[in-house]
């Protein structure tokens, strides 16, 4: 932890007035998390979880808070549409709920979907557990500031045994404003017993403005619930995005996450999963493609805490220009979590002499009836594959593009929504460097 209050970032964030809810428990939690942030400041690279992501440059910047901006910037509704995603939609611009861009009529039966600000005015009690949390780890600075200042976000509930077929779309837009802004979003998502949900979480930009956004999501899957979760992160090139998702899976629940990390300046995503119910399962697939001077850091922590739990993770990284890709994939099998089966793979392509990849797969195993394996590679396209393609008359550049596209697309292979899959792979290919 470093010089808390003296950092411009820390003092500018603390300048914002603490929101008041009228509820003692919430106001107390906010105040205490703010105090923790003020006392702890930002983690430095000596904190293991931030070893490869230095916050020195970010720490020197100042960000205003959203109330400073009188008027909401204009966002074009059609740009929000995603092929294959036609369910209800909740849109937040700079962390504030936008009713006019959202689509909340005709909600399917069993689905509750509303902004946090509304939910708190209505029935805050179910949110009490999530929102009164204290973040105690040294690396939790952004979760603390989020807990102190987030006033809006998504509250999504799926009733037991309800099957929500049309994908629900959550859109977070960072829009151009007069000053550099910081905004905070808090999401609480819960699937009841046997419920099913397809969810698309999207980050996008409506300007090149520098921003700092923190997002904290709690996702709870009841017994036998199923979640298909797609994350498309294509934030503005100037924005710093710090996200943390905590997923809890009860018995036989199954969550699948597909993540595309494309945009942003400094991007950090912590995905923490607890497999607390027997035979629960988590599959994560993802790709990070930093280019320019981007820094994308993905931190996976999967904890097997029950019998016969399964996790499989397949992540790819492509770093170009002066960019840096960071990946940590930690798997913990708790004592007694017999029959756990965990696998993790992280493959990376390093395309430029100034780019860097830091990867750290971890296994922490405390039970013996376990299958656990991980692998990580950093390298280039396979010379033999290139040679094969060239020997069939495909020019060097095309052959490279083809192989790189195949390398990236592997993470989308098992995404069931075909229309969305095609759209996402087209996006990936569009972002590939012209090799």
């Amino acid at each position, binding site marked *: 932890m470093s010089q808390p209050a003296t950092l411009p970032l820390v003092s500018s964030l603390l300048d914002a007035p603490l929101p008041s809810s009228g509820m003692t428990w919430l106001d107390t939690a906010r105040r205490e998390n703010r105090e923790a942030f003020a006392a702890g400041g930002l983690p430095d690279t000596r904190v293991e979880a931030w070893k490869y992501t230095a916050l020195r440059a970010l720490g020197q910047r100042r960000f205003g808070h959203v109330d400073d901006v009188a008027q909401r910037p204009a966002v074009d509704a059609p740009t929000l549409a995603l092929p294959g995603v036609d369910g209800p939609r909740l849109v937040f611009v700079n962390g504030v709920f936008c009713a006019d861009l959202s689509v909340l009529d005709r909600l399917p039966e069993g689905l509750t979907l509303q902004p946090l600000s509304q939910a708190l005015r209505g029935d805050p009690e179910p949110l009490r557990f999530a929102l009164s949390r204290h973040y105690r780890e040294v690396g939790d600075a952004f979760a603390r500031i989020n807990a102190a200042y987030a006033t809006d976000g998504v509250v999504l509930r799926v009733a037991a045994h309800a099957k929500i077929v049309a994908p629900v779309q959550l859109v977070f837009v960072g829009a151009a404003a007069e000053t550099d802004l910081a905004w905070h979003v808090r999401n609480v998502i819960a699937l009841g017993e046997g419920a099913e949900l397809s969810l698309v979480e999207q980050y996008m930009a409506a300007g090149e403005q520098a921003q700092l956004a923190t997002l904290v999501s709690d996702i709870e899957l009841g017994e036998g619930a199923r979640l298909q979760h797609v994350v498309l992160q294509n934030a503005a090139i100037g924005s710093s995005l710090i996200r943390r998702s905590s997923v809890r899976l009860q018995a036989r629940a199954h969550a699948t996450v597909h993540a595309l990390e494309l945009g942003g300046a400094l991007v950090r995503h912590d995905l923490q999963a607890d497999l607390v119910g027997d035979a629960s399962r988590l599959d994560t697939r993802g790709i990070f493609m930093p280019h320019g001077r981007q820094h994308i850091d993905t931190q996976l922590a999967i904890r097997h805490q029950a019998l016969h739990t399964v996790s499989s993770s397949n992540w790819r990284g492509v770093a170009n220009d002066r960019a840096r890709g960071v990946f940590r994939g930690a798997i913990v099998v708790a004592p007694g979590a017999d029959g756990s089966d965990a696998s993790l793979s992280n493959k990376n392509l390093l395309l430029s002499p100034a*780019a860097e*990849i830091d990867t750290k*797969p971890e296994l922490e*195993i405390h039970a013996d009836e376990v299958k*656990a*394996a991980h*692998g990580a590679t*950093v390298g280039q396209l396979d010379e033999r594959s290139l040679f094969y393609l060239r020997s069939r008359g495909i020019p060097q550049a095309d052959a490279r593009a083809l192989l790189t596209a195949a390398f990236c697309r592997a993470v989308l292979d098992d995404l069931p929504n075909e229309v969305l899959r095609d759209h996402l792979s087209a996006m990936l290919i569009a972002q590939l460097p012209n090799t």
Partner: protein
Amino acid sequence: MTSELSQTSATMRDNADVAEVLGRSYSAGFITKIEMTGLPPGLDEGTVRAISAVKGEPAWMTEWRLQAYRHWLTMPQPDWAKLSIDPIDYQAISYYAAPKVQPKSLDEVDPALLETYEKLGIPLHERAALAGVAVDAVFDSVSVGTTFRKQLAAAGVLFCSMSEAIREYPDIVRKYLGSVVPTGDNFFAALNSAVFSDGSFVFIPRGVRCPMELSTYFRINAQNTGQFERTLIVAEEGSHVSYLEGCTAPKRDENQLHAAVVELVALEGAQIKYSTVQNWYPGDENGVGGIYNFVTKRGDCRGDDSKISWTQVETGSAITWKYPSVVLRGDRSVGEFYSVALTHHHQQADTGTKMIHLGKHTKSKIVSKGISAGRSSNSYRGLVKVEKGAEGARNYTQCDSLLIGKQCGAHTFPYMEVKNPSAIIEHEATTSKISDDQMFYCRSRGIAEEDAVSMIVDGFCKQVFRELPMEFAVEAKKLLEVSLEGAVG
């Protein structure tokens, strides 16, 4: 106290057969009665000066130690490893102990000491003669006997204790000591630099292939004496040396601190092979006692086409904190790390390696096998770093863990940092237990359960044992069998 202990060791001899049958016994557990002269417990600048004075060191060496000591004072004890270490009172440790009778040749060596080696199955003369191995035996803190000096001298190889080297070859020592592991490198290295008692020094001149395998047996003896060896091996251009280090320690109850530093320097085209079998006292089955083994080992492939290879079999110590590393500075240099680490009962090990690729077309290979049994915790921690200039660097890492029992832990923490796009880095790790199928197959063929386990473990470790010199491989295999007794059933 001594009579009581010698009685114990006598009883142990008498009951050797019984002990072998009755599960795990620490076969090297006895205490040799040699009178000690040493410094009282405590550490300050006076202690450092006193050690330096006792050894008759030149002023620059004293200053070097003091600098390290002052640096050490400013450093916190590292806490990043996955180890739970009881606080160490550095003032309660005696930093220097030496056998009182200083022998001038092997014939003058205290018979009790020679007997110690005898009990360990290391008859100094015989073994040296039969196996053609020159042994520089470190008994506690001073070298007491050195063999084959003449034969080595004829080849131009310098092989002696570190204290002797500081007296006899100050220029070489001054040039290389601390050049691989600087005095302020880390907490334990700084401590070692300040108070190191003795160790081995090897110098292989240009173009010389060392005529025999060099070997040293380190042994902790006096109670409450930290052991701080310092080893320096320098291989000049085109030379070649294989060095064997083996450790056993007598049984005792208090934790002992062992913080060694080993530095290897390989100049152009030189090759150094460093093999270790570490069997310090691991504490009893309740986790009482045992050695704290906090070691800094690092090799520097300073010249082009040089090669450094570490092989280690770690079965002992209550706590192991050890990362033999290679800095691949020269172009086309090669670093290797082969490791078997076994933990049982309450042992903790956090061990691995670092491969730092700086030169072009450098290669490294890491094969690590961890076996955890009982309530132990066994972690592999490794770093593969490819710097910008390391064109065409190549690394292959394989880490496998084997779990025996429900209460142990096996962990893998590999770090990969790559800054050159032409590098290829691969890491693979698996964790599993001995499968029921494997056991059933062996049992159905009439193999006893413990034999089956040791067979499977032996197969699991084969890749590493292959890298050990012959006699070490046999010892290592035996060691694993003994260490795993009582782990199943």
